[in-house]
């Protein structure tokens, strides 16, 4: 296999990187892809709890890189899907435990094992960020329609461009259509005007995201929620489908009465 290595990064913390990795991973795996999610946030691991796999950790990313276990021993199988795996971050080490060249080498090994390697980047623009993008074929920048998140996203996009890599694509997360409508939240067009990169996903704000992480069951496992649908659309776009950006369309009253979506 020759998988694609995709890193999700943001600059600012708390905009939804880990949620996006868990849900895009589930959505791709539900479409029959073999997916390995890697938590790149050494010292502040969280992808394990968001995916609900925290009780099954034996080895971690640093164990693989330092040769204490084989790659496959560190891959935790998410049994809810045939081919979804997690490599957790080490919790008792820090970002300097690995280097960008370690990560590039690891990504080469992972590529031969699956269709998709999804790397969850830590916040910030220091070592952890450079580790997370070192082996990436594709980079997705995720942001919220909020002034500090957009500014940090722009900074990260600039750093990726400076490395002369393929231009990153954008996910706008936690969009609140009612606030946009009354002029109190940057719209999709505003954010695209400012950041000037290609959009790959629009995720509406959805309380189910918190409920899902409380349970350790990514909401994409059940596609009924608004955000879950949005992550399924992102997975389809990654697989090359042309999917219209209708994530924010709310059904009209008549359609709702008729029970249509």
């Amino acid at each position, binding site marked *: 296999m020759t998988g694609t290595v995709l890193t999700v990064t943001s600059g600012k913390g708390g905009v939804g990187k880990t949620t996006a990795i868990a849900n895009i991973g589930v959505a791709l795996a539900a479409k029959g892809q073999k997916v390995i999610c890697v938590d790149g946030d050494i010292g502040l691991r969280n992808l394990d709890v968001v995916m609900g796999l925290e009780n099954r950790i034996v080895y971690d990313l640093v164990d693989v890189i330092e040769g204490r276990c084989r790659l496959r021993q560190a891959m935790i199988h998410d049994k809810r899907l045939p081919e979804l795996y997690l490599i957790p971050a080490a919790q008792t080490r820090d970002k300097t435990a690995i280097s960008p060249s370690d990560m590039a080498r690891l990504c080469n090994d992972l590529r031969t094992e699956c269709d998709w390697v999804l790397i969850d980047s830590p916040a910030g623009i220091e070592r952890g960020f450079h580790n997370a993008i070192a082996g990436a074929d594709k980079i997705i920048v995720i942001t919220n329609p909020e*002034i500090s998140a957009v*500014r940090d996203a722009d900074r990260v996009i*600039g750093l990726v461009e400076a490395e002369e890599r393929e231009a990153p694509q954008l996910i706008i997360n936690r969009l609140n259509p009612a606030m*946009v409508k*009354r*002029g109190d939240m*940057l719209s999709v067009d505003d954010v695209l*005007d400012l950041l*000037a990169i290609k959009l790959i996903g629009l995720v509406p704000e959805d309380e189910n995201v918190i409920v899902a992480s409380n349970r350790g069951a990514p909401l994409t496992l059940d596609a009924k929620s608004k955000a879950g649908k949005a992550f399924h659309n992102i997975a389809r776009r990654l697989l090359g489908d042309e999917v219209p950006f209708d994530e924010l369309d709310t059904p009209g009253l008549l359609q709702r009465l008729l029970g249509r979506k």
Partner: protein
Amino acid sequence: MSFIDDLLGRKKSASSAKERLQFVLIHDRTDLTPAELERLKDDLIEAISRHVEIDSAAVNIAVTQEGRSQRLVADIPLRSAGRHHRR
């Protein structure tokens, strides 16, 4: 909030966010502070004035953008030779 804004003719918060971002992003991207841009303008006026006479008070210099690329645009009015001779 937005109803009151409308009554008072106040700008919506999203448009102030966008305007403020447009301003900070130009400087973030170029690493050029407004003070540095001012110094650059002075240097430019001095260099050009060695060759042609310009209306230094009317010089306008700004960073504009197209997509993700930035451009330094200078508008430098020349003093016409005729006016110069008559003086």
